[in-house]
């Protein structure tokens, strides 16, 4: 039989002024299994806690009810109290007679009656409590970072500097991501490559970091502390250990292909590194264009490779990596402007995207940093920038703001005015959004010092006329139509999720929003965690972001991952779902309602008569379960129960409402 002690708190006058403590203690003394009732001025004070510890010893209490403030306030305090007296900390129940009784009711009689009900409910529930312990699981002290852009680079370096091994998986042949394509960065106009490439080199030189470039994550199994990741290392046709990156092969290669890195504005060879500062500086053969793979002969690269690094029959390699934490930094892609027929992107060469403009102004780009328009190589005199192309457009694009376009367009305007003397810049905008350190000043500089003319209105149409591009817009501030005859039109493309972001999310078991961005566990308080423990988010895979925010988030994700890896073992939640295997039918209806993929099927053997039979039942992984209890309702035969909130406990509480 349970032996329950009830401790009623006055909370000074907070409770006692409205609730008749005497009546409550009298009523409590009559409740089933209650062997001791005390009241204290402040139960949470040291004397109050001491009286609980004393009563546990004196009366041999095995369960405790504290009628006081909200459990959200002091549940943990009193768990520690009874634990100190040798009781399991979960053999405690709080009756919330302050926030949910004395503070919200003025009528002393009614409040007292309600307080008695609340105590009775707590007593009924605590009688059903059992001691709970949390399980622990070991931690593999290694992290994986998926994606080698600035977010992945930063996260990898931070985790490695914290002393943990890191495996970086990047699907393109080089680190760098979108940032490597940029020219200058706002608001400081630092050269992007100057600040990025040293970090790329640092990654490959770091003793704790292993880089798998040109590799992709195939599969993720396991759970926090113990993930098992399958990685496919795609065949480069080049032995990375031998290749010195000397460049003899791509100098001699006869095949020219449009360069992905230059967004088709420049060319590369069929054997190539994407850009000169690529890391690792190892060549890759593009089998779709290499003559040898297409026609069976050529092999010029092989002839000129002194290191003998060319391996034409190289195969993809599958490797398995065990890690304790994963940082996802898979980035974004540009919105496809072809949706805007009225702007003629793809039809008229002199309508380009912002990222293409970056390549045009970049000193290592296809025009060596001279802004020349694609159609005829002429230096444009009048340049029009159109913002929010794809962004804030439910009709043709996405409803959200892409956050970076206002600033990079201001940067483009400044660069245009710097590089093309006497050029005229017009920027069509809807709003200028500059919430960031030094951002508003940067925009003012573009507008005032560099003379970019901002026109408030969306452009309706762009079409060619006599070698110019006619831009048909509206100045909504004047209420008049504006026609600009431009030499070059730059569309500020929005940022959208990677095309395979949802597939990646499913592999990882994390959720994604309607736009394909991966979802954080809480938008404010858990911004870099996911709902899957041990998986963290960095950079634009979570939503559009500029470089400073991306780096900050990467640092945050890295510190979360490092903190996890610092632990010897992980203690799981104690109040989790458990399966009564004798009842479980093994139907697994609980599985789809579990948001954490904590439930799976397991096969058990049992003796029935003289035979040993096997059947399948549900199994809860205590490391993954968060204790929401959704599974218990899906379970028709009540084989699943939630410890701390069992069916029996809730029924007992409900029944105690009306004695």
């Amino acid at each position, binding site marked *: 039989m349970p032996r329950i002690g009830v401790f009623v708190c006055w909370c000074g006058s907070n409770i006692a002024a409205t609730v008749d403590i005497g009546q409550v203690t009298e009523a409590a003394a009559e409740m089933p299994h209650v062997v001791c009732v005390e009241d204290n001025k402040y139960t949470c004070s040291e004397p109050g806690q001491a009286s609980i510890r004393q009563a546990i010893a004196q009366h041999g209490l095995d369960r405790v009810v504290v009628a006081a403030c909200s459990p959200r306030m002091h549940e943990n305090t009193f768990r520690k109290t009874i634990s100190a007296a040798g009781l399991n900390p979960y053999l405690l129940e709080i009756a919330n007679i302050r926030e949910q009784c004395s503070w919200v009711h003025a009528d002393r009689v009614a409040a007292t009656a309600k307080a008695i009900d609340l105590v009775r409910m707590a007593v009924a529930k605590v009688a059903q409590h059992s001691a709970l312990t949390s399980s622990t699981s070991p931690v593999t002290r290694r992290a994986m970072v998926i994606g080698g852009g600035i977010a992945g680079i930063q996260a990898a370096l931070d985790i490695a500097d914290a002393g943990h091994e890191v495996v970086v998986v990047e699907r393109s042949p080089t680190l760098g991501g979108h940032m490597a394509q940029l020219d200058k960065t706002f608001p400081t106009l630092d050269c992007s490559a100057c600040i990025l490439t040293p970090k790329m080199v640092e990654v490959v030189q770091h003793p704790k970091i292993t880089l798998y470039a040109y590799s992709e994550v195939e599969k993720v199994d396991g759970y926090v502390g113990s993930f098992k990741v399958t990685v496919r290392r795609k065949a480069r046709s080049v032995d990375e250990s031998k290749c010195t990156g000397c460049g003899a092969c791509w100098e001699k290669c006869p095949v020219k292909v449009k360069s992905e890195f230059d967004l088709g504005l420049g060319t590369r060879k069929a054997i190539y590194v994407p850009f000169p500062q690529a890391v690792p500086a190892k060549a890759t053969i593009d089998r779709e264009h290499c003559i040898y793979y297409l026609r069976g002969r050529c092999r010029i690269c092989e002839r000129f490779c002194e290191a003998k690094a060319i391996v034409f029959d190289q195969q993809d390699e599958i490797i398995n990596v065990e890690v304790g934490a994963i940082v996802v930094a898979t980035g974004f892609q540009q919105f496809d402007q072809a949706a805007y027929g*009225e702007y003629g992107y793809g039809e008229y060469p002199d309508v380009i995207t912002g990222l293409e403009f970056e390549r045009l102004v970049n000193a290592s780009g296809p025009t060596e940093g001279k802004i020349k328009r694609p159609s005829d190589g002429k230096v444009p005199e009048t340049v029009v920038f159109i913002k929010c192309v794809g962004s*804030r457009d439910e009709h*043709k694009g996405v409803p959200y703001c892409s956050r970076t376009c206002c600033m990079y367009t201001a940067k483009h305007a400044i660069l245009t005015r710097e590089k093309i003397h006497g050029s005229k810049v017009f920027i069509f905008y809807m709003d200028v959004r500059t919430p960031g350190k030094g951002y508003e000043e940067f925009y003012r500089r573009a507008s005032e010092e560099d003379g970019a003319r901002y026109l408030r209105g*969306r452009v309706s149409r762009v079409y060619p006329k006599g070698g110019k591009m006619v831009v048909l817009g509206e100045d*909504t501030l004047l209420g*008049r139509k504006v026609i600009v005859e431009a030499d070059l039109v730059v569309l500020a493309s929005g940022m959208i999720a990677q095309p395979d972001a949802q597939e990646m999310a499913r592999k990882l078991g994390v959720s994604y929003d309607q736009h394909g961005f991966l979802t954080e566990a809480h938008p404010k308080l858990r911004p870099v965690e996911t709902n899957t423990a041990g998986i963290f988010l960095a950079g634009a895979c979570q939503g559009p972001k500029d470089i400073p925010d991306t780096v900050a988030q990467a640092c945050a994700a890295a510190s979360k991952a490092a903190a996890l890896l610092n632990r010897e073992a992980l203690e799981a939640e104690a109040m989790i779902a458990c399966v009564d295997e004798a009842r479980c039918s093994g139907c697994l209806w609980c599985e789809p309602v579990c948001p954490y993929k904590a439930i799976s099927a397991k096969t058990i053997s049992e003796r029935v008569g003289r035979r040993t039979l096997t059947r399948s039942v549900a199994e809860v992984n205590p490391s993954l379960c968060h204790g929401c209890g959704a599974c218990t309702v899906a379970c028709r035969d009540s084989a699943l129960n939630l410890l701390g909130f069992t069916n029996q406990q809730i029924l007992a509480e409900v029944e105690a409402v009306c004695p």
Partner: protein
Amino acid sequence: MKALVLPASGAPGFAAEVSRLAGTDVQACYACGKCSAGCPVSASMDYQPHQIIRLVQLDQKDEVLSASAFWLCASCVTCSVRCPREVKLAQVMDALREISRRSGVAAGQPRIAAFYGSFLDLVRSGGRLHELGMTAMYKLRSRDLFGDIDLGVKLMLRGKLKLIPGRIKGRHHVAGIFRRVREHEAGEGGKR
């Protein structure tokens, strides 16, 4: 320009009425101006299309109905197709013409109103549009007697203007449709 006195100068419910009749939500507009930028006739309008929408959002019924802009709308639908907020502007313009006609306010573009009136009268009586008859009737109503006379002669000489109006057998059915719609509209007008 006169100041708006809010909410006094507004007609409560006007924006909602326009939205309902047009089958689109005018409050979705965020005033980017793309409609006005692409409108072929906005240069001739007294208010730009996005300004009309703005006035509607603010329930400025009197000011909107006195405008000529929506009468000038050529129903080319460019605005609707390019609107990032999926506001069907062309339908809003249709709705404003309908409200204007029903409320009996003098049209901001009396010629266009006269043109539409002539057109519909002929359809009501004959079931089909008789272009020559419409032109004649329109000229009388709009007092635009001598415009295009040379053109009319040229068309006539090329056999493009049919002299005798065709009448269909079902013209009484068509007239019935007109009558029932007008009755319904009158009933609605009474309720408003």
